[in-house]
């Protein structure tokens, strides 16, 4: 039976490093809860639940990438950041990862801090910085929104992958014979292509939501609701 696990398994990173990232992740998520509460109102709370559920679903959909025998799947950081903002978005990804580890045996429970740091904290932070920047400089059109989503998603995936490489450098359990660059290379190459898939899925989803309910796209809200973003009109 082929394995469907997609997150860091137990034993891949040593205990102390995994625990240290557990502390980092917990601290980051605490900040996200405090800041996210300011965003969470009666409208955003159910939307954020939906975003988490949707990301869980799409993460199951491994798509083939260029090299034979390798697949990729959505991480969801940019999607969550665009739809519900960075703070709540990071919490959405964290909930998905916790459910996957506790209920679906995917990703070691002891490794959760590593995964949350990469996919909920780093990916969402990188994505949101790019979203804030690109929505300022790109035209306020459907194309502008799509390009923003695509670029934020693609870059965030590659940076998150490099997050794992750093973790492996700090606490990887296998002796790579000094060949960390090899691991970095394969991670970067595969995630460049996964990033394209991530970008297409994110852009399609965000544009669809923006057409149906532009008020539910956090990144399109008025400046009052998202301080980092300059005035951006809705996309119709």
């Amino acid at each position: 039976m082929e394995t469907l696990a997609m997150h860091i398994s137990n034993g891949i990173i040593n205990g102390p490093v995994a625990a240290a990232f557990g502390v980092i992740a917990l601290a980051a998520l605490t900040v996200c809860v405090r800041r996210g509460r300011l965003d969470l109102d009666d409208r955003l709370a159910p939307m954020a639940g939906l975003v988490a559920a949707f990301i869980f679903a799409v993460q199951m959909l491994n798509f083939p990438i260029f090299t034979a025998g390798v697949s990729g799947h959505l991480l969801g950081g940019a999607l969550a950041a665009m739809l519900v903002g960075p703070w709540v978005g990071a919490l959405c990804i964290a909930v998905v990862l916790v459910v996957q580890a506790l209920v679906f045996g995917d990703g070691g429970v002891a490794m959760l801090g590593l995964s949350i740091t990469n996919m909920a904290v780093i990916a969402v932070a990188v994505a949101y910085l790019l979203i804030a920047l690109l929505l300022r400089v790109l035209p306020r059109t459907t194309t502008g929104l799509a390009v923003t989503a695509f670029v934020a998603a693609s870059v965030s995936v590659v940076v998150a992958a490099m997050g794992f490489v750093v973790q492996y450098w700090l606490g990887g359990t296998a002796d790579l014979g000094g060949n960390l660059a090899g691991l970095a290379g394969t991670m970067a190459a595969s995630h460049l292509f996964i990033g394209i898939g991530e970008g297409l899925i994110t852009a399609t989803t965000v544009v669809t939501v923006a057409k149906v309910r532009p008020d539910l796209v956090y990144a399109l809200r008025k400046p009052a609701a998202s301080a980092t973003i300059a005035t951006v009109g809705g996309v119709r």
Partner: protein
Amino acid sequence: MRKWSFIVGGLLVAVLLAGVVSNFASPHPDGLDSSLLEGCTLDTRGEITGGSCPAQQEQEHEIGGPLTDYGIAGLDNEFLSTGLAGVLGVLLTFAVAGGAFWLVRRREAGYAPKAGGPRDADQPGTSATSQG
């Protein structure tokens, strides 16, 4: 209720993706897994047969459980097994995330979407109790 029709519609899409489309997902290891398998040889079922790679250090999962690897333990029909596990996962994730977000949300007296920023609209009397 416009809000809820969007949520219900979105959930239906997620259920379809996880319940049906998931069966057409690529069975190959993802970018992370395949990078960790670099250096090892695999048989057709994806089991390590030789060589040396980081994935060999892998240890047992702490919990496992009946839904391990996105399937229902003991259900032989793979289509049903993956699909049902996916649907359960979507509903569980929505319940956990939606429930938690609903509990910690900012309580407002009225619905005022554009009346000032979120910080100004925060009602410390009703929502700041658990912030310490």
